[in-house]
């Protein structure tokens, strides 16, 4: 659990973060969204003390983050940034081994960890381990950057626009991978982005920041239904609202009894994608199949349209 307790950061006369208090639950993904200059990156960098707050306190699992030396604190917290920040003169394996090496792990343990992470990120350890970062594609570099952040098995992972430099297709894949990894390790993630689409895709809770203040801190569904200010509403994008609402839940949640013609869609598909299937296939309903392939019911155009409407 990470508690921001009345955090303020001032540079000379400008206040970049103003009296922010919020609590991040363990094992969740919290996304901080805002335009550039909103103070979101500064807020994130105060967690691992790359920036020191002017006033206030940040507690990690109840403990003031200033109670240990900076470098020790940072070795316990994963950190991944835009443009990956890989060390160009070190191989992929050496990059990933950075924090374990700093912590003085045994070589065998480091080697096993590097191989495990590369495999997890779908990079063949034998092929990629000895490569240099410039030999990798942008998407591969980004994966190595996240793998490096996770190498010492941190409970908390800070990510600053980690997917900002990727093209849309690779970005979507990277986001899916991140969610899978988060489930796998149960890591608490705080991620900063300016991309609302990304926030809705990843977040258990979203914090919207503007001019150093947190305007709203809520679950995606709550934020859609009850945006706290016109700014939040504008950020979500009014034309996107119904689709974002559908994107939060899966087709399984919208199953109605009965059967339908056509190719079954998987229950794990988002309702937004299910709607898109319905519209494209020109059908009023499609069967829904569970993971084992058994049809468990149908989703209908009418049912989804009703779910996309503003809840009362």
């Amino acid at each position: 659990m990470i508690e921001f307790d009345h955090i303020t950061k001032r540079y000379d006369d400008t206040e970049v973060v103003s009296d922010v208090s919020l609590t991040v639950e363990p094992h969740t993904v919290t996304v901080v969204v805002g335009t550039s200059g909103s103070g979101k990156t500064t807020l994130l960098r105060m967690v691992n003390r790359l920036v020191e707050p002017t006033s206030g306190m940040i507690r990690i699992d109840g403990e003031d983050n200033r109670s240990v030396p900076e470098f020790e604190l940072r070795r316990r917290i994963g950190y991944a940034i835009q443009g990956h920040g890989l060390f160009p003169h070190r191989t992929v394996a050496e990059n990933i081994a950075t924090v374990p090496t700093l912590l003085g792990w045994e070589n065998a343990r480091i080697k096993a960890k590097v191989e495990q992470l590369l495999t997890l990120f779908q990079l063949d350890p034998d092929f990629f381990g000895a490569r240099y970062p410039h030999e990798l594609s942008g998407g591969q570099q980004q994966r190595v950057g996240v793998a490096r952040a996770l190498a010492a098995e941190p409970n908390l992972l800070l990510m600053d626009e980690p997917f900002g430099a990727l093209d849309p297709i690779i970005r979507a894949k990277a986001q899916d991978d991140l969610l899978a990894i988060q489930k796998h390790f149960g890591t608490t993630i705080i991620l900063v982005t300016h991309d609302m689409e990304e926030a809705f895709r990843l977040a258990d809770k979203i914090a919207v920041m503007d001019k150093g203040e947190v305007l709203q801190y809520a679950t995606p569904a709550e934020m859609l239904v009850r945006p706290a200010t016109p700014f939040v509403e504008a950020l979500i994008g009014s034309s996107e609202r119904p689709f974002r609402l559908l994107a939060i839940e899966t087709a399984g949640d919208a199953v109605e009894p009965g059967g339908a013609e056509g190719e079954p869609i998987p229950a794990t598909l988002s309702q937004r994608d299910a709607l898109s299937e319905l519209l494209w296939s020109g059908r009023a309903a499609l069967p829904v199949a569970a993971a084992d392939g058994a049809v468990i019911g149908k989703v209908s155009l009418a049912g989804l349209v009703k779910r996309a409407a503003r809840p009362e």
Partner: protein
Amino acid sequence: MAIGIIGDTERKPLAFDKLGAIVAALAAYGALLAPFATFKANRIVQGETRAIWEALPPLLGYGLIALVTVAAVIALLRTPLTVRMASALAVLVALCFLAGAAADNLTPPDNAYARVSPASGFWILLFAFALLVADALTRLNPGPVVRLLFLAAVLALVGGMLFAGVWDGLSILKEYASRADTFWAEAGRHLTLALGSLAAATVVGLPLGILCHRVDRLRNSVLGVLNAIQTIPSIALFGILIAPLGWIAAYVPGAAAIGIRGIGVAPAFVALFLYSLLPVVANTVVGLAGVPRAANDAARGLGMTDWQRLATVEFPLAFPVILTAIRIVLVQNIGLATIAALIGGGGFGVFVFQGIGQTAMDLVLLGAVPTVVLAFAAAIVLDALIEMAASDRSQGRAA
């Protein structure tokens, strides 16, 4: 690039090479119009010049002209790089041997006063075909190891010729013969001055550069002062140093005992050291500033201490740039150390200034040629090292 050239050759077999045209013109002038050797009755009188066919026995003389003609034609036409290189090297080796042969041929038997030295035609030919070799080497683009081997082979060849006495008849080696002891002593002093001041500049300049990188305000003032020093002419700097070093020698106990005085090695060493500081400090600052921001940020965010970040991220990434500074300084110092002789600092300059004083050009060459060879060899060795250091620390696209 090489492939393109071969392709051109296949299409137009009689195309001319631009550089080759210059080389051929120089070769024609050097071989036919300019004198090949100078003969002097003794070491300080005005010499008489001799063309190739006068300086060499007929067989060797016309043989050299034929060889130069063939090589010039090969240079003029667009021929494969290896052929150009081989023919140019053949001319260079022949020139080196025949310079010695000309000396033996022109010197009257049992005459210890006569002096024979290579004249403008020899130097022009040497320059023209060295240019061709350099051009072919550049276009072949060999790796650093091959370049080092090439340098070693050339030095071994020259050393072998010296050892075998091929050039013993040339005036420069006659000057050497009468000064063999002092030559090696001055060579040692020259190297001590050039390398010692470089080592001192590195030891002081690296930490200073790191400090300048970290402290903005310091950077401008330090670089400003070092820049100002760089603009002081070397002789003036020696003059400026005489007073403070003389004072130190007189009043600081023990200073005179370790060789510090107003003239001699100490001011030369200090001056070279001061000139070396700017490149080392400036390149350290530039190299450190060139470290990708994201890599630096990640290094801090992952929990490296300042020292760890400096030693394992910043310094290795800045290293090729710092090595470039060391190359600049080394080549610069080898040349500048010549001036040290003016204030009694020793080195190859001793021969240069003695030679000027006695209007004995051969003695000037005895000081100048080793200096040039040293500087040239140092440049090639360090360029190769820089390339080796940079190749596996390839600059990533991290930004």
